[in-house]
C-alpha cells in the first residue's frame, strides 16, 4: 500500500517531465482544493500559455462526446498532444454524478496518448469554473498542444467556456427545431465555429441553412465570419473538414494578433473571477456568521431598513476598514 505523499515541488517537476500519473493526481488536488493547491497551480501557471484551448458546447444529445472523440483522435494523428476535459452535471440531490462521456470515446481510449479527465460539475456556485480554470492551467503546463473542454451547454457554463477557450465550437443537431430558436440569442455571440452534427439524419441540411442565415445576419453587424459545418461523428463524415477549420483558426488568430486580444480577455476574466471568489469566501467566513449580519437580516425582515442600504452599511464597515475597498 503506497501512501500518497504530497510533495508539490516533486509533483511539479514530474509534470514538467510529462508524467501523466502526477498530472492526474495534481488534478485531484486542484479539483478538491486540497492543501497547497494554489502553490501547485502557481508553479504551473508560469509554464502555461502554449495550448490551443478549444471549448465544445451544445445541448445534451447533440453528440458532443462522440465529436470530441473524433476531433481528439484526428488532432493526435496529426502529431498534436491532446488532452480532454469532459464535464458532466452532478445530481443536485445526492451530489453524486455518473460521468459517462467515456462511453462515447472509444477511439480516444485506443490511443494511450490522449489524456481524458471527467469532471463532475458539483453544483457549487463558482466552484466548477474555478476547477476548470485550474485544471486547464495544469494541462497547459504539462505541455498539451490542444485541450478540448466539453460542457453541457446550459446558460452560464456556455458563456464561461468562451472566457476560457481560444476557439468555441457550438454543436447542434437536426430535429431540435424550436430549441435552436430559443438559444439563438445566447449562442450567436459565443460560437467561433458552428457544427451541425448527425448530418446523416434527415433535416440536417435545413438546420444548417437556418444557422447559416442567422450567421449571415450577424456577420453584417459584427463582421465576424462563423463557419457552419456539417459532421457525422458516428459515420466519421466531415471530421477532417472540422479539424482543418480548427487548425486554420488557430493559425489565423496567431497571425492577426487576435490571440493576444483573446488572451487579454482571458486574463481579465480569470483575475476578476478569482477576486470575486476571494470576496465571496471572505463574506462567507467573516460576514455571514457575524451577529451584525443576523441583526441586519432581522431588520430587513421587519422592513426597518431596505436591503440595499443595509448592504451599503455592511460594505463600508467590513471592506473599507479591511482596506479591501473604498466607499464612494
Amino acid at each position, binding site marked *: *500500500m*503506497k*501512501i*500518497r505523499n504530497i510533495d508539490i515541488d516533486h509533483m511539479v517537476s514530474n509534470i514538467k517531465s510529462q508524467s*501523466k*500519473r502526477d498530472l*492526474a*493526481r495534481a*488534478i*485531484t488536488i486542484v479539483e*478538491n482544493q486540497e492543501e497547497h493547491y494554489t502553490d501547485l497551480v502557481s508553479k504551473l501557471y508560469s509554464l502555461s500559455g502554449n495550448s490551443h484551448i478549444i471549448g465544445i458546447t451544445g445541448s445534451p444529445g447533440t453528440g458532443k462526446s462522440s465529436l470530441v472523440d473524433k476531433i481528439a483522435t484526428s488532432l493526435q494523428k496529426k502529431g498534436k498532444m491532446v488532452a480532454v476535459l469532459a464535464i458532466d452535471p*452532478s*445530481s443536485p440531490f*445526492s*451530489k*453524486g*454524478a*455518473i*460521468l*459517462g462521456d*467515456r*462511453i462515447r470515446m*472509444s477511439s480516444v*481510449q485506443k490511443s*494511450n496518448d490522449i*489524456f*481524458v*479527465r*471527467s469532471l*463532475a460539475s*458539483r453544483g457549487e456556485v463558482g466552484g466548477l469554473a474555478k476547477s476548470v480554470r485550474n485544471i486547464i492551467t495544469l494541462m497547459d503546463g504539462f505541455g498539451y498542444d490542444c485541450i478540448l473542454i466539453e460542457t453541457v451547454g446550459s446558460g452560464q457554463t456556455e458563456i464561461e467556456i468562451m472566457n476560457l477557450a481560444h476557439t468555441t465550437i457550438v454543436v447542434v443537431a437536426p430535429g431540435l427545431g424550436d430549441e435552436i430558436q430559443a438559444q439563438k440569442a445566447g449562442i450567436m455571440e459565443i460560437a467561433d465555429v458552428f457544427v451541425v452534427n448527425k448530418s446523416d439524419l434527415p433535416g440536417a441540411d435545413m438546420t444548417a441553412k437556418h444557422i447559416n442565415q442567422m450567421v449571415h445576419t450577424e456577420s453584417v453587424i459584427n463582421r465576424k465570419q462563423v463557419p457552419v459545418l456539417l459532421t457525422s461523428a458516428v459515420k466519421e463524415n466531415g471530421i477532417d473538414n472540422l479539424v482543418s477549420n480548427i487548425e486554420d483558426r488557430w493559425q489565423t488568430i496567431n497571425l492577426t494578433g487576435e490571440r493576444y486580444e483573446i488572451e487579454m480577455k482571458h486574463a481579465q476574466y480569470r483575475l476578476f473571477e478569482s477576486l470575486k471568489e476571494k470576496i465571496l469566501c471572505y463574506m462567507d467566513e467573516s460576514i455571514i456568521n457575524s451577529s451584525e449580519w443576523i441583526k441586519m437580516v432581522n431588520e430587513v425582515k421587519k422592513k426597518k431598513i431596505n436591503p440595499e442600504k443595509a448592504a451599503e452599511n455592511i460594505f463600508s464597515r467590513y471592506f473599507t476598514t479591511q482596506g479591501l475597498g473604498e466607499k464612494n
Partner: protein
Amino acid sequence: MNRPIKILVTKIGLDGHDRGARVVASAFREAGMEVIYTSPWQRIEDVVSISLQEDVDIIAISSLAYDHLIIPKLMNALVEEELDDKKVIVGGIIPKEDEEILLTAGVAKIFHPGESLDSIIESVERLMENQKEMR
C-alpha cells in the same frame, strides 16, 4: 468525508451483460459518489489508463461470466503502473472456490448475488475510511 468518492464501474473481458453494473453505478451516484462509467468489454490496459487518468479511489469490476479470472492480470498491471493505492472490488457471479484467487491477487472485497445495495455502499465507504487513515 469532505470530498466525493470517485469510483470506476466497468467490465473487462467479453461478457456484455451490464445491467448489474448499471444498477450499482446508479446506487453509487445516489450515495453521492462520482462514478466513471464505461461500456463493457474494456481491456486490462484500458482499465489501467482510465484509472490513472481519472485518478479514481476505487475500481469496481462487474463479472458475470468468468471474466473474473482475468482480474489477477489487472492487479499485476496496476502494480506495474504504481496504481496499487487504488482499491479493487469485484461483484457478480464469483464461485466460492475462486474467491481465494482474487483475494490473494489483492482484491479488497467481493460481492455476491443478493448483496444489498446499501451494504455494498457501506463497504465502499468503509474501504475509503481505511485508506484515508493510511495516508
